[in-house]
């Protein structure tokens, strides 16, 4: 929980270390910036928080997170709370914090990010936080519903910028395959020209997520890269890369004992 309290101490709208090159993400023509991460590190949600903070200094910002839309009321309650122990305990009762598949989306780093967003919202630095994980009967529907939720997160204000945060795959303008059927990934449904897709690349180290099972595992990376946003050589399906400039550190589950678990049925 050290990271959580550290974040509480420094996370105000006035304390966001700028990311070199990030200003190009926030120009007026861009309505959506969709940032993808490898789940389960401390550094990648923190970098997203820095990007949100930097964007909010220039544009009205709505944040969209890959979390279950059914838990929006719990998030709303936390975001408007005093952030105290009781509020935090109630917040952490949500199923996505406690469920058995701890794949990095319910990490301490995400809890830190939630706290930064609470403070930012309280200070008026961001307008709102919307959850975008609506599910679906098929892989295609799952992706499509996520895209629709990101699109819907934008309000009527023409200056509003939606800053979405999800796993890398959803944030890619591309396709995947399931049971022999090709389907579009979520970001492929986003309007080209109004959307910038950013892949975060961290340095090598560790991450807490799910491969054959869920837990801390080595994470390869780009340790020789300085912290910045780079438009020069984006990976296929993305418009830019955001380098953390730091080694990756596994961020364990925020609300469950940090023990390795097998994937259901795996």
């Amino acid at each position, binding site marked *: 929980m050290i990271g959580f309290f550290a974040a509480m101490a420094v996370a105000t709208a006035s304390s966001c270390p700028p990311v070199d090159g990030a200003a190009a993400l926030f120009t007026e023509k861009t309505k959506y910036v969709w940032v*993808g991460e*490898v789940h389960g590190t401390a550094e990648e949600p923190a970098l997203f928080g820095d990007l949100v903070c930097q964007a909010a200094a220039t544009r009205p910002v709505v944040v969209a997170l890959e979390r279950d839309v059914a838990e929006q009321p719990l998030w709303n309650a936390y975001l408007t709370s005093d952030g105290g122990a009781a509020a935090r305990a109630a917040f952490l009762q949500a199923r996505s914090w406690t469920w058995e598949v701890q794949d990095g989306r319910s990490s301490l780093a995400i809890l830190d990010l939630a706290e930064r967003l609470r403070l930012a919202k309280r200070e008026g630095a961001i307008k709102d936080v919307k959850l975008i994980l609506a599910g679906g009967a098929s892989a295609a529907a799952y992706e499509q519903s996520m895209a629709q939720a990101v699109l819907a997160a934008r309000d009527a204000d023409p200056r509003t910028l939606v800053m979405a945060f999800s*796993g*890398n*795959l959803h944030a*890619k303008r*591309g*396709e*995947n*395959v399931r*049971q*022999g*059927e*090709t389907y579009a990934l979520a970001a492929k449904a986003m309007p080209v020209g109004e959307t910038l897709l950013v*892949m975060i*690349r*961290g340095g090598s180290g560790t*991450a807490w*997520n799910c*491969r*054959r099972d869920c837990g801390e595992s080595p*994470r*390869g*990376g780009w340790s020789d890269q300085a912290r910045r946003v780079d438009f020069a050589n984006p*990976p*296929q*399906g993305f418009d830019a890369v955001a380098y953390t400039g730091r080694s990756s550190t596994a961020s364990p589950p925020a609300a469950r004992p940090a023990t390795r678990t097998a994937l259901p049925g795996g």
Partner: protein
Amino acid sequence: MDLHALAIPTYVQMLKGLGNQLTKGEAYAVEHGLATEELLDARLAPDMFPLSTQVRLVCTQASDLLRHLTGADSFAPAEDATDFDGLRAQLTDAAQRIQATPASVFDGVAEKTIELKLPNGIVFDMTGEQFVRDWALPQFYFHLMAAYAILRHKGVALGKPDWVSHMFAYIRPGTMPGG
């Protein structure tokens, strides 16, 4: 034996299947922050070819099928592809060329004498039917399985549904668990 009816659908569906497996491999790399080269350069043993070469050799085997049976020009890729799009392009090209081969070109090839010369000087003499059954199909599947196994070894969540994804077309409605 109607070698066209046997071989053409087999090659086409397995070439497409490997393309889908590569798409899942690419998705896995994106999801877990792996460099493309980490998969493309991966191999099962130090003296085995990497994934990019296995894919090229799958296409070479498809080309050799037509070259030996029908005298068609080779369409084997000259070099390994360097990204997933390139790998899929090789497979798509091979599948299209195989699929475009009319049945009439295969007339009489089952009985045709095939002389198969290896680079080390060994020569095999066989019929077209023996060539397809005993050489071409095993060689094709050898490289297909090597590519699949490399992806699986690197952690890509592949299984039998990805290996024989063409089988989904035959599922009796209502018998798919959860479907």
